[in-house]
């Protein structure tokens, strides 16, 4: 037992680790994005400064242990994802399509994470923004870096800023 393990912690209430994030994301990807090119697990995310053109889809998981599930990917990758989900050519993808598809990816992963938490939790509505800051390693309860072809995808489950439950 580690010295920290006796103390109550947020992590003790969250039975979601990087392997769980990988498994859920791979299932979502295989069903709705790309059944032929599987996501390759590269391990927990390595924090990097925010890059221009990075899209972040997020959904809050509200309740006793409030968290945020986020998916970060490049604008190019987000367009490719939207094209596949809408079954259209990438050139025809609009910004609204990217918002919708990226938000739905976060929503599906978040919904499956929420299903593993105590019953009192509920899911917020997804939002999609341009990244202004990089991932916060201190906030991450679990994270995963996944490779899809030439694109890298970061999935993180973070403590919700401020810790509010609603």
């Amino acid at each position: 037992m580690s010295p920290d393990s006796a103390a109550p912690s947020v992590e003790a209430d969250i039975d979601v680790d990087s392997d769980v994030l990988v498994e859920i994301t791979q299932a979502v990807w295989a069903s709705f994005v790309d059944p032929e090119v599987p996501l390759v697990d590269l391990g927990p995310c390595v924090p990097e400064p925010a890059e221009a053109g990075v899209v972040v889809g997020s959904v809050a998981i509200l309740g006793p242990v409030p968290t945020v599930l986020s998916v970060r990917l490049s604008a190019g990758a987000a367009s490719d994802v939207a094209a596949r989900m809408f079954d259209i050519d990438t050139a025809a993808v609009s910004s609204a399509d990217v918002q919708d598809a990226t938000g739905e990816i976060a929503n599906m992963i978040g919904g499956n994470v929420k299903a593993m938490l105590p019953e009192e939790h509920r899911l917020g509505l997804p939002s999609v923004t341009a990244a202004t800051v990089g991932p916060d390693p201190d906030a991450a309860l679990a994270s995963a870096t996944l490779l899809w072809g030439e694109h890298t995808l970061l999935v993180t489950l973070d403590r919700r800023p401020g810790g509010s439950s609603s």
Partner: protein
Amino acid sequence: MKVLVVDDSRVMRQIVVRTLRQAGFDGLDIVEATNGAEGLDVVASEGPDMVLSDWNMPEMTGIDFLTTLRARGDSTPFGFVTSEGSAEMRERAAGAGALFLIAKPFSADTFADTLAPILG
């Protein structure tokens, strides 16, 4: 057969419709709504044979949509297609009168098995 697909995500409505086709349910008349409140209007105006609804939506959630329908005496077959498939939510869905809850991600096989008794 007319099927109402309710989801605030346009891409998810499209995926649900595509999956219905892949599951072998061809020739369906599809109508759509973006939330429960709009769904109530479409049920009243279109009289669908079945409703497939998301749970978590703005304006009116799927569970409030179903509860309102049943309170109005409307018994249209209703099922959820949602990212939240916990045992608690399945119980709430069944208690409110839903026939099933399909969790995302789903497959055409899941649609075929679950919907065959209704869509034949």
